[in-house]
């Protein structure tokens, strides 16, 4: 691998859709970069902006959030709250130049390839952005 920058991506996925999508990517043996670590929550509605900020200040180079497609939420509408919240957070992150490091995607249980694809894309994009500039300062 050499000295190439390998970003650390923290993932939050809901239990019902995106987590299962990642499972399907696994069952189908679709290879994707190993940079992501997933924390499972029950619903994307549980994704607290505080988690995202903590992750970024803790040294994550990117945060990937995954939930059910609109209208398909296991809990009816948690994903709508997630979307609203993350959009608001993004506005704030813009001020710090961190908004591109946070990504919210809808991936269903049957979308294994999409999961692998999105993670691959995210890793590539964060590689281009370089390391998270706030990593050191907060230590």
């Amino acid at each position, binding site marked *: 691998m050499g000295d190439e920058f390998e970003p650390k991506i923290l993932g939050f996925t809901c*239990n019902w859709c995106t987590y299962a999508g990642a499972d399907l990517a696994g069952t189908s043996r679709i290879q994707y970069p190993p940079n992501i670590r997933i924390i499972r929550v029950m619903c994307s*509605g549980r994704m607290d902006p505080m988690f995202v900020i903590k992750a970024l200040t803790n040294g994550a180079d990117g945060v990937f959030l995954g939930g059910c497609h609109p209208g398909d939420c296991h809990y*009816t509408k948690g994903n709508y709250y997630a979307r609203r919240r993350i959009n608001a957070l993004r506005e704030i992150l813009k001020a710090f130049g961190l908004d591109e490091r946070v990504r919210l995607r809808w991936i269903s249980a049957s979308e294994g390839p999409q999961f692998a694809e999105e993670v691959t894309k995210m890793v590539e994009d964060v590689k281009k952005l370089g390391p998270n500039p706030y990593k050191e300062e907060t230590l």
Partner: protein
Amino acid sequence: MTVCVIGGGISGIMAALALSRRGTETVLIESGETLGGHMAEIADCISGLEPKLIEVEADPLIEVITGVTVEKIDGSRGNFTLTLSGGRTINASSIILATGYTPFDPSVWSRYHLEHPNVYTSLEFERVISLSSPTGGRLPDGIRRIGFIQCIGSRDPRANPLCSSVCCMYTANEIKTLKARNPDVEVYVFFMDIRVAGRDERTIDKLKREGVTYIRSRVPEVITDDGKLTVRYEDTGAGELKSLDLDAVVLAIGLLPSGSTRKLAELAGLELTEEGYIKVSDGVRTSVDGIYACGCVAAPVRISDAVVQAEAAASLASEDGSPPPEMPELIEPEGEPAIGLIIFTDNGTLGSYIDLEKVREAALAIDGVIQVKEVPSLSGLEAEIASLVKDGSNRIVVAGLSHRKHEEMVRDVVERAGLNRYLVEIANIREHAAWVHPPDEATRKSIDLIRMAIAKVREVSPLKVELLPVTRRALVIGGGVAGMRASLEIASHGIGVYLIEREEKLGGMLGESNEIVADLIKQVESNELIQVMTGAEIDRIEGYIGNFSCTIRDEKLEAGAIVIATGAKRFEPAGLYSYGDDPKVITQAELTRRLETGIDAGTVAMIQCVGSRDGERGCSRVCCIEAVSNALAIKEKNPDTEVFILHKDIRTYGIYEKLYRDARSKGVIFLRFDEDKPPKYENGIVTVFDTLLGDEIQIRPDLLVLSTGLDVADRMQKINELLGTDLPTDKFYAEVKGESHLRLNPVDFEIDGTFIAGAIKLPKMVDEVIAEGIAAGGRVCSLLQQEAIPREGAVALVDEEICSGCGICVQICPFGAIELVQSLVEERVTYGWPITEIKEVAHVTKLCRGCGTCASLCPSSAIRHQFFEDVGILSQLELI
């Protein structure tokens, strides 16, 4: 007593699980080597099927026997003896047949050239587009244009005169998957009629908008010339013979009765239909008492309908089972977390993906880990976890399983080992690491995932699983066929029912003049356990699973579960086709009533899809069958009456295709009009542009019959009001949810403890409604037979001290599970004495399902999502 389920496809699996839920011991027999049936062959269906397979495997009440066939069936209800091919015999009180279907083999016909490498059957094509194919679902090079031919081995008197019901939609699903993995491919579909309803109809509309060409055609034929593929067909729109060059062809093969079904029917002496399906009444009862049928053995059905039948068959077959075994006294974890780690090696295969020795070493070095054990199979989990707990572990981490697929099972095992079921966490090092990354990196990631799981499990505390008391009574809303049948099913298991009907009489949409309805009314009214309330409008429903309370006028009814069977209303065609002004214009329902006494008309014209499939409302499914059977009734009484049916598609699904064929042979004339050119009715003359003829036709009918669709708007509105749901009112429930959500729990409604059946879900024929009523009733029974209902432990909890009573959580909770209450709170102030005061705080009710949305939205951080607490999540993400 044991129930024997024959056939290990999805119907058999779901029947076995439904039986076990009710405490009935079950033997599941499968002739193949593995369970799963045809569902396992469908691209990516595995994500739905796999959890069920795991459930069956881990279920102590289900014995699975594979690789055997049934050779002999003796005895009768209550005492059957089945002799298996190995010689073993099984005693069973009832038998459920779920032997599925055999896909039609098109190689018997040379006209489709199945020998050509690029001609696939739809099942073969599932493998081509499956992610687990060698190309990951990408088509072989050189395939840019692909054609799907519908009705291969269906609606064809030479092979199978019936409609297979499922092919229109499975083709659409295949195209969806195909396009997702091969966006540039051109797709053509050769079809006669599109037969889908609900959300599926929108899926097909979307495919059309995205450029899939649907060609209405007849007798397509595949021609191979020097390896090139051409489809020649009669374009019924243009009325001419055409041909289209393609690179590949997919044959949408139909579903035929399976060979084993016939053999079993002979062994058990069951009656068959002329097509070779098992003859059933009530959707699932065979001609022999004590033997039931579910899935495709009685007619081709979709998975959700097969599961309805499986639930219904299980309910009829089950006798009240024994209560679940007593749980051991739980150990209170004391002192520091002592973590026992299990690595599930998947029969040793995990070791070929990651370096297990390294993982083990790294895990042992983590603070708090006291033991690491490897377990090769799921069945070994029980003993290993028990021994870990015995040796002093008070927290467990299982690496190598998936939260989504295994969590509940693992929690059960942990509980049986004497530890609180929430003191375990999973590290998914198989699906999320070993299988998707190169060995070195996968090993590193696995160690990280285990670290994260350990960090979390250190922070979790035992959660109390509250046992909710159960009111052993059910509330059934709606006195139509579905509601009455559900009530009878519940009562037959000794549970009381309140049956509420808004109208003055029972009978619902079909009305008491219908024979089946009249019989149901008689049974319901004479059943002591069913308390019927007619002319009763429900004012309010409160409570939660096991403990609902329903207010009607001044009366309060307590019930443990609710069945919603409010049915649908006929669409009122006021103003359309002069309905209401011209006495010659009537609705199909009115015609049905008039036919009881006979009609006097030389010419009858029927217009389909009035108030359905109009852009707003979807297909009502029953109107085509109703129209065709009324047309047949007219012809039967007076063969000289001219009957015209003006339609968009003729949707006589499954066995009802027979009616369509009969109607055509008896001279009923079918004229197809285009969606954008509906027929007109002026001065007593119907004018229609017939697409087959390509010209206008005028008819002067003595009766113009409007086949009106069904409408649920007022019913949905009422349900939303009573249960606090937020469902769109212009759609049937199944249209809102879609097959993918309903497939494996087809009668479950939004709120725990509530179930849905009948036309409010989706319009259906009476037999299907009856099966659905039984299924919903069965689900109620398995719920209410419990002495108490264990409630999800990982729910929200309010810290009343911090709560400011702002009420934001009350508004956002998707289940209306939070309310503001006055509470006596001991509050500390920064200086001075602790004071106690009454203040308004949020209170989480038993409706909470544990999504955690409120916890992340609370401005005061006063709500904790137990098991997913901030501290646990933060300790995981700190490891990054």
